[in-house]
């Protein structure tokens, strides 16, 4: 059924009414009686030994209630911030996980690392108190440059050569043999630039403690409140899980950066217990730049071996990935299991070998950022493929078609550990080619040239592994947690429904999409379905939102729970209709007896479940509320074709994106408007990486792009009018047939832009971001 609000309908987002009227309820909107304010004192040095910290002047100031250092947390046995994914090196050894105290104790390792916290009656008093904290540092040699970090001065005692791990995947010998027999080898040196996530809402926390019960409540900007609670309880030792409630209310964007458990909320909830007072902290924008986990930051040497006709025979990739100063929560998995495994792309490349060395530097921790590993993999593969096509004189679409995994090849096992369940890559490419008008490109190029402009076109056929993840696969690869999802569908007496999910919405529109699924399945009005998320006190459990998993995993759990509700309702209905289950049909919210005109509505059944007069109490419990847990059997594999057309002004080096087409296969779609919105946002971030964004530390370890004066965020006038469309091959293993759409835009678009730009300039590579200066230099052959 595609009703106006059912599955497949472009329903306007429920949540937008509050967001666009300023009525959203964010962490910083939460205030408690007697609330205190925390301000963190952060290192200005990229690396220094802490000789002493003096908080006495701060404590003497009016309004200051407490001032804590790392030693105070350590004295209360508050543990280190853990990394949740164990990656092993080639030699089988465990990755190095250096100590990561939430508040620095003896050494600071990046600019922005907190080494003290001041708590005061007002924010201003806390700021003044923080200003009064003095410390004596002994500056140490800094390691900033990624290329030379391995072998530079050792940052952590535990990490010789600053290496975290040296990982590999694939068959080295087979790949070397493929290269030895190849007719042509295309190779590229690729820099994947470092990015800062820049969620619109800065991170924040309000910690509370009730001495009478020993209950803690933490409001914080988390993409996964249950995981936050688990880590704070089990690893950081703040409180028992049952004594700690974590709530993520409205959250204004995350893009990965709010998956992780950070120092600030850890210290805030601990101090709330210590002082038995509510404490609020909210990052200012400068703190977000310094202390949110950054993204990407790879150096890669990539080689593609081909036959003379363009058939791919082997792919060899060697990457150095920056972990920053400490391992953030999922940092280790991003350049390995979310990167190396995707290097097959959409192609039948028979032999692939990838090595990844991750290293520590004196910079902010680096972790997942929209796409997480998959944009890096797509960038490597799609830049190589386009370059190979140019070197062999092939059409970039043809060389891709020649190598695509074909629809009849599925399920397709790649040489890098994944099994793609379904797809039709040429269908997306074909549609994208039509939409951009590839046939007319030569004409458009000539017309640009006549106007003194250079025009180029670039393709990117990406694939991603989403819907994280089958728990047993993830656990066998080193994950520290399962990756299933939970749902509860609670039917009220009057037939309205609350849906509790373990996923968290921070811009994705779950309140709408999930309500569409449930209202469609139960045949009740969309308005009668309320989606509850982000509260460990209200949802059983959950692993949160990232990796385009919410609809695929969380939505599937909701389908399972809803099916259980329908199954029980059918039994109740059969009793009420004096028939048998087998003879009762359920359609559009009405139970009816086959071949009769007797029927009863879903709300009537619900009422009977709670007011069980006419009810089979000898067979069924009263009430109508069902729970389900769903663990996917495979990842999902959204894929698509992005084509970008740029025009470059040779006088200034300014790049304008004149055409951008994204055709994505997300499987079945619940709300096409939300999907288009997700794609638009992803494209803006992917294009931002290509043309604008860059986090730069100077050689002394200072972040010099620490504000919007120097870190360029994409703006509306940097973007073209996107043309987005979809093709559909339903996912074969989840009940929705859905694949996930949250990251695709950021995964596919970057390579398309840079392929178009290098085509326009006639050069092999331009480093990102391709600012006018960079482009101008590339044109000058510098």
């Amino acid at each position, binding site marked *: 059924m595609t009703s106006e609000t059912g599955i497949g309908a472009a329903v306007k987002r429920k949540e937008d009414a509050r967001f666009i009227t300023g009525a959203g309820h964010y962490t910083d909107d939460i205030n408690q009686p007697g609330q205190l304010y925390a301000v963190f004192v952060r290192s200005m040095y990229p690396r220094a030994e802490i000789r002493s910290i003096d908080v006495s002047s701060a404590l003497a100031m009016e309004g200051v209630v407490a001032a804590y250092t790392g030693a105070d947390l350590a004295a209360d046995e508050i543990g280190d911030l853990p990394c949740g994914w164990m990656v092993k090196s080639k030699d089988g050894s465990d990755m190095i996980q250096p100590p990561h105290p939430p508040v620095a104790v003896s050494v600071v390792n990046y*600019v922005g690392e907190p080494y003290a916290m001041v708590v005061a009656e007002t924010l201003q008093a806390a700021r003044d108190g923080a200003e009064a904290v003095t410390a004596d540092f002994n500056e140490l040699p800094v390691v900033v*440059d990624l*290329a*030379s970090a391995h072998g530079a001065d050792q940052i952590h005692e535990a990490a010789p050569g600053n290496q975290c791990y040296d990982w590999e995947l694939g068959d080295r010998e087979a790949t070397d043999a493929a290269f030895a027999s190849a007719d042509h080898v295309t190779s590229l*040196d690729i820099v994947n630039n470092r990015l800062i996530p820049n969620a619109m809402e800065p991170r924040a926390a309000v910690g509370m403690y009730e001495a009478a019960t020993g209950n803690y409540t933490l409001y914080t900007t988390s993409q996964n409140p249950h995981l936050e609670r688990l880590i704070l309880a089990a690893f950081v030792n703040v409180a028992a899980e049952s004594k700690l409630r974590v709530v993520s209310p409205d959250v204004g964007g995350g893009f990965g950066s709010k998956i992780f458990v950070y120092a600030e909320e850890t210290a805030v909830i601990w101090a709330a217990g210590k002082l038995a007072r509510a404490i609020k902290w909210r990052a200012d924008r400068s703190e977000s730049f310094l202390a949110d986990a950054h993204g990407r930051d790879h150096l890669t040497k990539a080689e593609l071996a081909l036959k003379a006709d363009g058939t791919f025979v082997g792919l060899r990739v060697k990457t150095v990935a920056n972990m920053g100063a400490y391992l953030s929560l999922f940092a280790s998995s991003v350049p390995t299991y979310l990167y190396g495994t995707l290097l097959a792309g959409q192609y039948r490349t028979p032999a692939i070998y990838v090595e990844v060395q991750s290293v520590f530097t004196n910079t902010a921790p680096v972790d997942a950022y929209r796409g997480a590993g998959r944009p890096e993999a797509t960038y490597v593969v799609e830049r190589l493929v386009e370059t190979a096509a140019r070197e062999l004189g092939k059409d970039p679409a043809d060389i891709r078609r020649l190598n695509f995994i074909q629809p009849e090849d599925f399920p397709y096992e790649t040489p890098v550990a994944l099994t793609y369940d379904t797809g039709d890559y040429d269908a997306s490419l074909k549609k994208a080619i039509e939409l951009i008008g590839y046939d007319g490109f030569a004409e458009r190029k000539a017309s640009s040239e006549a106007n003194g402009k250079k025009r180029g076109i670039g393709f990117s056929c990406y694939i991603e592994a989403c819907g994280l993840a089958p728990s047993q696969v993830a656990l066998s690869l080193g994950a520290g947690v399962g990756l299933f999802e939970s749902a509860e569908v609670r039917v009220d007496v009057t037939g309205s429904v609350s849906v509790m999910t373990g996923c968290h919405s921070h811009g994705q529109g779950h309140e709408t999409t999930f309500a569409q699924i449930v209202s469609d399945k139960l045949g009740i009005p969309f308005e009668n379905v309320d989606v509850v998320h982000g509260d460990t006190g209200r949802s059983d459990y959950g692993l949160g939102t990232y990796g385009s998993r919410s609809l695929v995993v969380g939505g599937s759990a909701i389908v399972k729970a809803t099916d259980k509700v329908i199954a029980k309702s059918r039994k109740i209905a059969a009793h009420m209709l004096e028939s048998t289950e087998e003879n009762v049909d359920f359609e559009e919210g009405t139970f009816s007896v086959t071949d009769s005109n007797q029927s009863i509505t879903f709300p009537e059944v619900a009422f009977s479940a709670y007011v069980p007069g006419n009810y089979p109490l000898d067979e069924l419990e009263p009430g109508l509320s069902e729970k389900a847990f769903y663990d996917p059997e495979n990842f999902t594999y959204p894929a698509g074709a992005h084509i970008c057309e740029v025009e470059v002004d040779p006088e200034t080096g300014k790049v304008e994106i004149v055409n951008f087409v994204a055709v994505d296969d997300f499987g079945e779609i619940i709300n096409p408007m939300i999907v288009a919105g997700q794609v638009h946002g992803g494209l803006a971030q992917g294009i931002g990486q290509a043309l604008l964004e860059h986090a730069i530390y100077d050689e002394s370890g*200072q972040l010099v792009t*620490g504000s919007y004066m120097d870190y360029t965020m994409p703006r509306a006038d940097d973007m073209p009018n996107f043309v987005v469309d979809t093709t559909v091959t339903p996912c074969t293993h989840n009940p929705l047939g859905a694949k996930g759409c949250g990251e695709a835009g950021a995964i596919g678009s970057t390579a398309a832009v840079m392929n178009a730009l290098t085509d326009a300039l006639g050069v092999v590579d331009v480093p990102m971001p391709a600012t006018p200066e*960079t482009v101008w230099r590339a044109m000058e052959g510098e």
Partner: protein
Amino acid sequence: MEDYARVVDRFVGFGGRTLEQSGQYRIPAARAVVWDALNDADVLAACIEGCESVTKLSDHRFDANITAKLGPVKTKFKATIEVSDRNPPQSYSLEVSVKGGMQGFGKGRAEVELAEDQNATLLSYRVEGNVGGKLAQMGSRLITAAGRKMADGFFSKFSERWADTI
């Protein structure tokens, strides 16, 4: 991996930003007079914009309190200046360390040379330094311009002391 370093170096013009600046000023006074003035705490205090105090602890050490603005960051700085290679009245080197509380810090080395030029003195300086903390985060792009402005401001006031004598 040298290749990458090269690529990054070449294209990322604005990594590795240190302040490097040099300049020359003609001061209408005899070299010995200029030298004495440069070593006089009161003169320095009068010529440094935003200067609240300069204390001369010895021929080799000055402390100063200065309020300065770099882009959006305005703060009070405590500066310590260590004088080395003192070669009166011809040249000296300065190690400067500036601390601005939570706003950041700066450090640098300056070399100053005085040459006789008829009745006047040619002062040449070369400074190299870098900043950290919020100063780097917010203001690094502005440092060269700010440094130039500060030097120009200082020497223009410094030169004015002898304006009447010409």
